[in-house]
């Protein structure tokens, strides 16, 4: 899961963004999904043009398992965001996939990521 990172100034929803964890995991997500986190959105803000926005790599100081859960939630949220109010969002299904051991850590990460 690697991709060439070029210096495209244009920011598109379909751009791939790399998220890295402290223990060496790398995750590729679409910019649209990345933007559900306020913190990551600020990182990628091309107007401010921090190093992350240039390289499209966002290092997170979290363990891979936490990052994965956070990203999973972001994807989950991006998927159901556009849903009408009548449709059922399978929240429980997601909750069941969340191991209780890491719940608090994920919670902290979520706070950090502005989820």
């Amino acid at each position, binding site marked *: 899961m690697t991709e060439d990172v070029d210096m495209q100034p244009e920011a598109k929803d379909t751009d791939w963004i790399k998220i890295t964890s*402290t223990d060496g995991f790398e995750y590729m997500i679409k910019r649209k999904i990345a933007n559900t986190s306020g913190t990551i959105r600020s990182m990628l803000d091309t107007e401010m043009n921090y190093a992350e926005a240039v390289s499209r790599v966002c290092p997170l*100081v979290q363990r891979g398992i936490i990052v994965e859960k956070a990203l999973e939630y972001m994807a989950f949220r991006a998927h159901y965001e556009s849903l009408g109010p009548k449709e059922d969002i399978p929240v429980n299904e997601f909750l069941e996939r969340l191991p*209780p051991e890491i719940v*608090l*850590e994920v919670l902290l990460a979520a706070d950090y990521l502005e989820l």
Partner: protein
Amino acid sequence: MASTARRGKTKIKPPRKHGQAFSAEKTWAELANNIREIQNHDASNLSFEENYRFAYNMVLHKEGRMLYEGVKKLVAENLDMMAREKVIPAFPTGSINDPMHESQEGDIFLKALRGVWDDHVSNMIKLGQILKYMDRVHTKTDKVPEIWDAGLHLFLKHIIRPPIQQHIVSAVLNQIQFERDGYSINRFPVKGCVDVLLSLDIDDAGVTVYKRDLEPAFLRESEAFYKAEGVKLLESCDAPEFLRRVESRFESEDSRTHHYLSSQTAPPLRQILQDNLLTPHLSTVISFPNSGLDNMIDTEKTDDLARLYRLFVMVPIGLPCLKKSLKDSIARRGTEINRTSLGNDGGDLDIGEDAGSLKRKGKGKARPAGGGGAEKLTLALKWVQDVLDLRDKFVAVWQMAFNSDREVESALNEAFESFVNSNDKAPEFISLFIDDNLKKGLKGKTDSEVEAVLDKTITVFRFLTDKDVFERYYKGHLAKRLLQGRSVSDDAERGMLAKLKVECGYQFTQKLEGMFHDMKLSGDTMQAYRAHLAKTTPPSIDLSVTVVTQTFWPMSHSPSPCVLSAEMEKACKSFEQFYLSRHSGRRLTWQPSLGNADVRVAFKAKTIELNVSTFALIILLQFQDLEDDGFLTFTELQEATRIDDNDLQRHLQSLACAKYKVLKKHPPGREVERDDSFSFNADFTSTLLKIKIGTISSKVESGEERKETRDRIDEERRHQTEACIVRIMKDRKHMKHNDLINEVTRQLSGRFQPDPLNIKKRIEGLIEREYLERCPDRKSYNYSA
């Protein structure tokens, strides 16, 4: 994030502490360094995540206040630095007396200020993102403003301060003044600067620096400028130019507030313009000699008038001022028209016109006007035409320039009403005008043209208060048109009648319609009579009779006496018999004065058919049995015919002194005297086979006749007033004096404007005749019949 409370089956491990030992000072030192880097526009080398984590950690470790204060200090330092390096060096020197140079300096200064602002904003946004966690957590608990607002506050404190503050205001004002003086400026920096001031609140109430510093100064300056400008324009321009300039000032100020000031300044600025540039000068401008309202209307400057209207409606006193000027203008023009119509009783008119109108009169038959009847008619027609033209002119102005404003319309109508009614001959003139159009009608004009003219006439008619006077004249004219078959088109007549009916209601036209009805019945009667004659021996002459109902027609009730010839007498008798056999119990009265006759006269050269009035025929018949060149004196003729003095004189004049001289008068001359004598002019000849000899208008003094008409109208009004009072009282039984007067006035105003004094007299008359009785309180009446 979803809830973590999950049944509690499994043990929830505490999160692992990440990061090593935390040192607030060390973190801050690094962060502060990075912030300076950001302020130097060097963000792309920095990791956002890192800085965000610094701020996050500091807040997490309860060092939020240190972070917050530290950032504020850094921002303040940066602002001070920028003020020192960028703003202060750009201060306009203000020492040079060259407006162009001054404007450029202002431009540079404002640009610099804007640059500093832009820099500050961009920095604050970047910092805001890094410090987002602080804003979310720390500022709320510590009850301090978010870093963005703190940044604005710092900007206010470090940049918008004396002397920079004063320089900003004066630079902006200078630029505006420069533009007002007609130069073009670079609006962009001004706008940029104004936007900055607009986005800076000085307190929680939302009062901006713009509102506090710039706007009052700007408005003060504007007021002074426009006060002087108004006086200056008034001295140097004529009215249209003044209005043009003023309007362009309004537009440019509008565009100014719109483009580079705040829209909240627009209303007070507009007010200043109105108060200083417009309101004090309105009446001066509108009455400018040679270029004011009058002149614009004369020269049909629609654009200028439209502009005048646009400007005048802006201010409250504008419309009344415009209305008054319009009224004055109309009144002046109206008085002029009235004066020309009354002023000269002939004499002023040149010969050509005189001859033309004489001819028209020949065909046109008698007017109620006297003396110079022809001139009178021309004047009457001219008067109406002038009024119509004037009205057309003002209506055109009203429609094109005044946006068809209702208030202006009512002012126009009032003005017309007052001057039309100030001419007490107006009803007669209007009726004459209609008469003329309906008679000449098709000659030279199409039906629709006549229709249009009549439509317009109705609008003038609407202004009349004495509609009953008009009715009287109209009836007279209509009667003559109908009896003498001079009406061009029955449709036009009926159309006119319908218009009057719409204007004044059914009662007004009842009698007029009766007249039409009589004409139709007469036609039927004549057909039946002809059929009847075909079965018996017809009398030697052909007779056509119009039977009219006395009450509908405005004819004098006593027929003028005359001696008919035997043949005529026989024919009349024959019809009388026929008519009375069909309608028993009716009484026929002959009105020979209204009739006319075709008669073949054998002159020496050839036989010519003459169409003359019945009276003229009777006169001619007197010469039938006379040998050639036999004379008859005026007195002899009168004895033989028994025609009234005046009528005889008139008809002799038309036979002997007009265009076709069928009789010779001795001695010759234009006027017929009582001791003249007449002989048949056997040498008379003409290229025509049929000649119509009109009757010269009666020579009765117009004043006397007018008086008579007036008296008759007064009498009619008395009757109408009484009838109206009785009608009202019969309905109400009891009424207060004032209420009664009001009600009567209201009901009668459709026909004429009753005088309260006359109403009172009529009430007294009715009390005498015991229709009404005075109540004991002496203020109200009872109906007692």
